[in-house]
């Protein structure tokens, strides 16, 4: 992990988390979900955050747009310290941070087009203009023929495409993906990952991906961070983290997997660490297993 100089925000870092902690207090007691996380995400990269369930991944990504307010620490996005803003200022900054979810979270009583218009209308864009932009975005995500369909008439993959178009409507600099493919079948996952990679290339948008699926990380991430029990274990390139000779990451991620999948995963990680395997080939092997 790169050293973080206090107070200095390097220009290429679009998201900076400093000493971020989150403690949930309930009647049953306290749960330390995140502990003193320091993390910088660079402009234009696809950054993965991996870990088993309960590791704090979701809490971490929700802290980036302050859906979850950290107990301690600072969140800086695009040079703005979000943790220091008033509610109204924060809402304004959130227009520049898109987010998609595992459960899509579309408006069920609105059409695909109306869903994509929503973020534009709340920022005061006139309806006609909003519809034009929403229509273009739905073309971009491959849903030209589903503009007037309601979410109940769409498949999971199509709903996630609407959600992606909606997240992109306000031209955000950052796109947060909270387990965005976990509810989808392998083929649909593949097409959504392709779309995310395409969006990253075309718009230069920084994408943060939370996932427990190894293949998502292998497929699209430039760099990865691994979380365990609220602690940041390591940050680095996909090869560095997944191909760690100690295989600790693999060990942790393969617990509970069927034998054949575990073997396949171990082989892929080994090949990655040896530099034999490149991103695309890794994915190909992953599919054939």
């Amino acid at each position: 992990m790169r050293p973080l100089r206090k107070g200095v925000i390097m220009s290429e870092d679009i998201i900076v988390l400093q000493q971020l902690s989150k403690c949930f207090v309930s009647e049953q007691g306290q749960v330390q979900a995140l502990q003193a996380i320091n993390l910088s995400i660079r402009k234009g990269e696809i950054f993965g955050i991996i870990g088993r369930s309960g590791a704090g991944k979701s809490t971490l990504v929700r802290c980036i747009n302050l859906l979850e307010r950290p107990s301690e620490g600072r969140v800086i996005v695009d040079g703005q310290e979000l943790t220091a803003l008033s509610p109204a200022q924060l809402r304004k900054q959130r227009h520049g941070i898109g987010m998609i979810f595992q459960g899509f979270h579309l408006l069920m009583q609105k059409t695909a087009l109306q869903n994509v218009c929503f973020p534009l209308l709340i920022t005061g864009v006139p309806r006609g203009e909003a519809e034009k932009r929403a229509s273009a975005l739905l073309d971009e995500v491959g849903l030209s023929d589903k503009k007037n369909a309601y979410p109940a008439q769409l498949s999971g993959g199509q709903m996630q495409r609407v959600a992606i178009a909606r997240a992109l409507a306000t031209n955000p600099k950052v796109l947060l993906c909270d387990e965005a493919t976990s509810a989808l079948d392998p083929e649909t996952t593949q097409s959504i990952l392709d779309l995310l990679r395409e969006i990253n290339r075309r718009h230069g948008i920084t994408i943060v991906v939370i996932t427990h699926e190894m293949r998502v990380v292998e497929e699209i991430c430039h760099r990865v961070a691994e979380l365990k029990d609220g602690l940041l274990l390591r940050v680095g390139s996909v090869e560095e983290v997944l191909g760690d000779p100690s295989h600790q990451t693999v060990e942790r991620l393969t617990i509970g997997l069927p034998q054949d999948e575990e073997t396949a995963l171990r082989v892929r990680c080994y090949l990655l660490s040896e530099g034999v395997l490149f991103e695309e080939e890794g994915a190909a092997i992953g599919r054939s297993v």
Partner: protein
Amino acid sequence: MAALFDPKLLQLFLIGLGETAAMTLASTGISYLLGLPLGLLLVLTDRDGIMPKPSLSRALGMVINCIRSLPFIILLVVVMPVTRAITGTTVGSKAMLVPLVIAATPYIARVVEGSIREIDAGVIEAAQAMGASPLQIVLRVMLPEAGPSLLIGATVATTTILGYSALSGIVGGGGLGAIAINYGYYRRTTDIMMVAVVLLVLLVQLVQEFGGRIARRSDRRLT
């Protein structure tokens, strides 16, 4: 039975029907003006709401429970001084609006609260993530998303209030309820009471059928 077709009786029923419809619609309308914001406030200020003010939410809930725990027949009598202060009288359809609104508002607040709580929390969270203000979330997310459920709630509320309005016949309210009680209970003219009862049943069926149909037709979750 032939006496039922007496023009005088026919007029009696027509007036009764009109009074019942007017009382029900007016008190439901006024109660929604008060109960809808109240129900929203209950959800918004809840501990997990988008504007958490748990003490306010709890206080509101307690007041609502207090009014709701009073049987309507008792409430009718208890609020008579208020009724007189507002309308100048305690008898007739207009006077009955006061107890009807007092009884229906907290009921409607609870019905609205239930509808709003049905919305998937994730949708509201997504709107927050996009930078929507609480007012925008209420107007553009909560009310449209809960629309069909709110309509079903309104249907149930209207039929309940129709029942209340009939009950008010006992203490001098007008409408079909008054006819049923005065002719059926006090004068033992069972056939006239039966006609009033049948008309009440038909009214409830009509409201229920009509409201349910609109709700189903407007729900985009059903394909």
